[in-house]
């Protein structure tokens, strides 16, 4: 298994707005700790799931990977090359090979361009095919995502949510990427439509040998379609391992709670016992030590003091927990 993208100690913080009162009292500016010291490998050909609840930093991480955000610290190596140092043509080449599919297919497509123009623009900017071949390539892309050829002449508003997401995927595929980062690509869709888009991702991956980073809050999807999964909590990865094994026997208390909290589509599991108590802490002031300790049934003095390190537990399985 070769490493395609190596993420090391990636950190991204966003300065919070300071109130006038804070300014007058000379309080320091606070920062949202969106992504903290994340290290993760993306292997060639795999589907890597990144899961977590809102504010855990999964979308910020995704945007750092395609350089929509510049990380404050850490490194990013794509096939050995330092991504953060890339400039000009080299950076464009990286963006060609690493493409993003966004959550909301309504706002990520230009409403004034026809689908054909959107796809042709990507083909033209990255000079993927000679100008004369663009119409044929547009049709081939529409075939790939199972849209009719007449879609090329229509504008995004004429399509349903599921079809729009197919257009978003076709746009990402236009530049022949090796790695696709998909940020909640099916969350805005109805259940009956979701399945078709999930199938499309799996089919394209098998046909084109793509590597896929699939970011979602939906654990059922992650369990179904990913090879490995990384669980994030408050900006950090708390556990990463092979999907089937991790879901069968999660080791981090947060992963355990998260999996228990997902309602199963099977009747007869009714209890009144919640999987985990408490709320997500503010990323402005993450708790000292392990960020999960205020909600964790196993927490002790060490957890309240020291940030646990993500370390190997055998079988390509890493856990960041003092107790597990």
């Amino acid at each position, binding site marked *: 298994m070769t490493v395609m993208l190596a993420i090391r100690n990636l950190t991204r913080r966003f300065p919070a707005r300071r109130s006038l009162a804070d300014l007058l009292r000379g309080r320091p500016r606070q920062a949202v700790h969106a992504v903290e010291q994340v290290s993760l490998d993306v292997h060639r050909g795999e589907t890597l799931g990144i899961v977590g*609840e*809102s504010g855990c930093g999964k979308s910020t991480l995704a945007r750092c990977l395609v350089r929509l955000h510049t990380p404050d610290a850490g490194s990013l190596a794509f096939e050995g090359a330092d991504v953060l140092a890339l400039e000009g043509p080299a950076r464009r080449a990286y963006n060609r090979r690493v493409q993003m599919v966004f959550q909301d297919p309504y706002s990520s497509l230009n409403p004034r361009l026809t689908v054909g123009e959107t796809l042709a623009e990507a083909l033209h900017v990255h000079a993927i095919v000679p100008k004369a071949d663009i119409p044929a390539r547009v049709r081939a892309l529409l075939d790939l995502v199972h849209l009719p050829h007449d879609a090329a002449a229509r504008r995004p508003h004429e399509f*349903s949510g*599921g079809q729009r997401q197919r257009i978003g995927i076709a746009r990402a595929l236009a530049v022949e990427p090796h790695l696709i980062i998909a940020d909640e690509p099916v969350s805005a869709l*109805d*259940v*009956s*439509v*979701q*399945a*078709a888009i*999930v*199938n499309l991702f*799996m*089919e394209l991956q098998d046909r084109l040998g793509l590597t896929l980073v699939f970011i979602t*809050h939906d*654990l*059922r*999807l992650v*369990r*179904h*379609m990913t090879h490995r999964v990384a669980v994030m909590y408050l900006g950090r990865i708390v556990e990463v391992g092979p*999907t*089937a094994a991790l879901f069968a026997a999660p080791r981090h208390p947060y992963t355990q*709670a*998260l999996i*228990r*909290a*997902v*309602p*199963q*589509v*099977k*009747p*007869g*599991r*009714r*209890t*009144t*016992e*919640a*999987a*985990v*108590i408490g*709320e*997500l802490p503010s990323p402005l002031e993450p708790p000292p030590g392990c960020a999960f300790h205020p909600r964790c049934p196993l927490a002790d003095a060490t957890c309240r003091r020291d940030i646990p390190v993500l370390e190997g537990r055998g079988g390509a399985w890493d856990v960041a927990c003092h107790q597990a």
Partner: protein
Amino acid sequence: MSLLDVVDLRVTFSTPRGPVHAVDGVSFCVASGEVLGIVGESGSGKSVTLRAIPKLLHANAAVTGTVRWRGADLHTMPAEDLRRVRGGQIATVFQEPMSALNPVLPIGLQIDEVLTAHTTLDTAARRRRAVELLGLVGIASPTTRLDQFPHEFSGGMRQRAMIAIALAAAPALLLADEPTTALDVTIQDQILKLLLRLVADLGMSLVLVTHDLGVIAETCDRVAVMYAGRLCETGSVHNVFLRPQHAYTHALLRSMPGEGAARAMLVPIPGQPPRIDRPTAGCAFAPRCSFVEDLCTTTRPPLIDVAPQHRSACYAAARLPVRAA
């Protein structure tokens, strides 16, 4: 005897582009202490059905049919009586607590409004009751929290506060419209478990509207499946999930991840969700259905008993494959 009886409910919105039949002949009942789930995709009419019960729809909605509450028709009773039922005996919790709560009033005052309207308690007793209610829904340091405003609460805490307001007058029926859809999964789990505990402890009935089959499976006694403003199927959660008798329910359950082996292709429902502004003659699901026959496209299937306590509106009910347990 059932607490709530909805018979042939129809809701039509008049819009600039013509009438939209959002709810099209829906009948169901809710027994005392029961948890009924209404499930459907966007545009299925599930939320409109829920809001039509206590007459919470806008003026452009024309509602017909009867909604009987303990035998009395809510839609024909005098406004004065309806006001006593609404908030007093039937309370509602909405999806987005930030837009349902009044942002300029402290939470305590919003609870107090309900207590003033529906109880005879004096000021001090109302304050004690408000503290008690916040404690009941799991809000820590309730005395301090009473004087805070909605923006000082987190999403989960706001939904707890909404539930506290709804419970203030000790209603017999709680209507919850996607109460956990805006929340994270661990918080959703806490809120659903809270609702179940309240149902058990207070002997309340609950109607829960959701798009999530998992939420239905783990929370409800009975389920009503809606599609294009119509009721497809009603029955116990156990029967509907294990032996669905409507082709739509069957297809919906089959499309869920986790049914087959890991990375096996899912079984999507072909086509697009229906447009309710263009009603169909036969079964609304017919264009997407893999069990469709001629009759389905011409004649609307009636909702009939297919087994004890299990009703379905599907000509293919007997032909549906049995799902593996």
